[in-house]
């Protein structure tokens, strides 16, 4: 890891010195506990703030949506395999152009201690199509059972599921941290902020909470790359990632689609396929 940090600093310095990019978005330790947060290196001397270790949870792709970051010029961004998928989705949705980005991929063998759940099932340890890649190739087969937790939930009866979700979602305080941290939630005006008519009730009450969490997940159908940031930042520890995961599973089974694998794919709702779509369940 020490070695990777040195490599990253060297690379960032090289890019900033040559003015290939105006800004390097990476990770760096901050605060008393050295938590790895986003670091924006604008000058060659800033690169000393950059770092890499097994605690780089964040999906930095979210910053590429922010106008205040965009106006600073061409960015270089440090991505893990999962974050690279997020970039693919942003590129296919025309939020970004590939040529306006310098991508520094990091081969990642999982983050967290113990390993985060998503990392066990990860199939993209080595990010593809990057301008630079740091670290050695990682051979780490994905474990089976990615959707076991979704399956368990599906086994329950409808009333049990309702009980589970009404308890969990009842705790939501509507801080919208899940939205803010999500690289795909880039609408300038989110549906919860539309108030003529008021689509989603804004007070932290189960009725609005249910609508919010359902519609948030639905808007990410076929777009969510499963970085799990929404769940990680949730201050009430609501397993909202599970709803997204259910939709990921459904999209995989029904439409044979996984988000963010290439940057010219079409999302499941922006296309249709007469060969596989059926009238199942339609009167």
């Amino acid at each position, binding site marked *: 890891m020490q070695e990777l940090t040195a490599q990253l600093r060297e690379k960032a310095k090289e890019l900033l010195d040559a003015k290939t990019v105006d800004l390097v978005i990476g990770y760096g330790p901050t605060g008393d506990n050295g938590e790895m947060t986003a670091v924006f290196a604008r000058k060659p001397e800033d690169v000393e703030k950059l770092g890499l270790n097994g605690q780089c949870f964040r999906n930095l792709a979210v910053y590429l949506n922010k106008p205040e970051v965009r106006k600073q010029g061409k960015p270089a961004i440090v991505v893990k395999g999962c974050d690279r998928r997020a970039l693919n989705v942003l590129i296919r949705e025309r939020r970004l152009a590939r040529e306006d980005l310098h991508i520094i991929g990091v081969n990642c063998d999982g983050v967290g201690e113990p390993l985060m759940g998503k990392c066990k099932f990860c199939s993209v340890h080595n990010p593809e199509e990057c301008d630079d890649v740091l670290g050695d190739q990682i051979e780490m087969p994905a474990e089976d059972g990615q959707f076991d937790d979704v399956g368990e939930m599906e086994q329950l009866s409808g009333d049990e599921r309702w*009980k589970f979700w009404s308890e969990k979602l009842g705790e939501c305080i509507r801080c919208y941290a899940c939205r803010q941290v999500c690289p795909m939630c880039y609408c300038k005006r989110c549906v919860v902020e539309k108030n003529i008519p008021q689509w989603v009730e804004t007070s932290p009450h189960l009725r609005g909470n249910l609508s919010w969490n359902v519609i948030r997940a639905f808007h990410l159908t076929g777009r969510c790359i499963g970085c799990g940031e929404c769940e990680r930042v949730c201050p009430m520890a609501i397993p909202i990632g599970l*709803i997204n995961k259910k*939709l990921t599973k459904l999209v995989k089974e029904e439409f044979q689609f996984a988000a963010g694998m290439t940057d010219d794919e079409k999302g499941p709702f922006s296309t249709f396929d007469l060969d596989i779509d059926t009238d199942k369940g339609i009167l």
Partner: protein
Amino acid sequence: MESTQQVESTSAAPEEWSPSIVAFLCNWCSYAGADLAGMSRFKYPANIRIVKVPCSGKVDPMFVLKAFESGADLVLVSGCHPGDCHYATGNYHARRKLPTFRTLLEFVGIDPRRFQISWVSAAEGAKWAKMVADITELAEELGPFEYFDRLSDKRKNRQCRN
């Protein structure tokens, strides 16, 4: 406090419950189909409230949630048969989007039968009448949709329903 009790005690015996159904019909096929049912004097239950939309592909899942929040016991979305869409592909998109949304509702514990999707063409007045009778019967069988209702006091305020 006293006065509210008085109001409750003096109000008439609770109305007999009958289901509210909200239907989003596409302008070109299903709405015309429902029109045809009327012109042909087919009888069907009057529990259904129709909202005309340009296309079944226009139906945002938010409409469905909002209908449930406002006290619907069952929501129906109806459009043209595949291949007949006035806008060529709207119902193909609906056919992906809406069943996915139904699965999502089911996942959070809402009975998927409360959200129905159908294809009714402008010539299918008889199908429309029969389907509305069927889903009204289904809604009666499922009973009042209390999940959302329990969360609000709207049911109390809806004195004049049906």
